[in-house]
């Protein structure tokens, strides 16, 4: 049963948005890694937004992929925020402590507003 994940990139002043859709599982590794690389390739964004509003499923391997993206971003001095998580996956971000390191916004609008305010 092949699963799918897609990532669309949007560059903003001071930040980049990675809009994810589909399933974040083992098959999403290349999509997530390459999505992050595309997001930071130009403009050296201070903040990377992971938008999960169109994600239907995240499993433990997907959590590990998110941990890897977070570790990479932190090593490059970037902040990671997330938007659009369902209540269930917000709970999982709390249990795993990802929410200690990734600020959560209910929707992409809140995350983008923060980027714009930070960019002046």
């Amino acid at each position, binding site marked *: *049963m*092949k*699963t799918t994940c897609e990532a669309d990139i949007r560059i903003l002043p001071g930040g980049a948005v990675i809009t994810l859709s589909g*399933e974040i*599982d*083992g*098959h999403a590794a290349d999509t997530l890694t390459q999505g992050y690389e595309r997001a930071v390739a130009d403009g050296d964004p201070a903040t990377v937004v992971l938008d999960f509003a169109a994600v239907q*499923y995240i*499993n*433990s*391997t997907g*959590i*590990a*992929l998110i*941990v*890897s993206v*977070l*570790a990479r971003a*932190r090593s490059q001095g970037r902040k990671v925020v997330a938007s659009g998580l*369902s*209540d*269930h996956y917000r*709970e*999982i971000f709390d*249990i*795993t*402590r*990802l929410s*200690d*390191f990734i600020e959560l916004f209910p929707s992409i609008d809140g995350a983008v507003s923060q980027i714009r305010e930070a960019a002046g």
Partner: protein
Amino acid sequence: MTSMASSSYHKLASFTVPSEPGNERIALAQVADAVAGQGLPESRLDRLKTAVAEAAMNAIEHGNRNQAEIPVDIEVVAADGDIVVTITDQGGAPEQAGPGEEPDLVRKLAGEQAPRGWGLFLIRHMVDAMDVTTEGTRHTVTLIMRTGAAEEGGPREDHV
């Protein structure tokens, strides 16, 4: 642990999935269908689905080593206000004895622990109780979730 001899014992579903990566999605969908109408609030159904998916993924990958011809057996039972899901592979006892290292995000971010290793951790936090038994090659994970609207909260007990 819930007695299978309970007078309210009622089998809701019994099925198998081939041991192919991704088939945990089939398992969680069929378990969700089986427990529909059993009184699980949506948030607890989401937890059960995550636990089933993680246990099925472990059975497929680690138990049956992605050999499609070896099925993962799944049974769903309602008994005394509990939903009991058993997930069985043919991998025998896991190679690692005793509890594994608890995932620690701080250590993972520092590169001191691999990013993976969240599966069992998630299962334990999603259900009210779990049990792991091995009988010959049959390795079974039992997940227990109470039904009822007043059941929001953490795990009731942990047998692992």
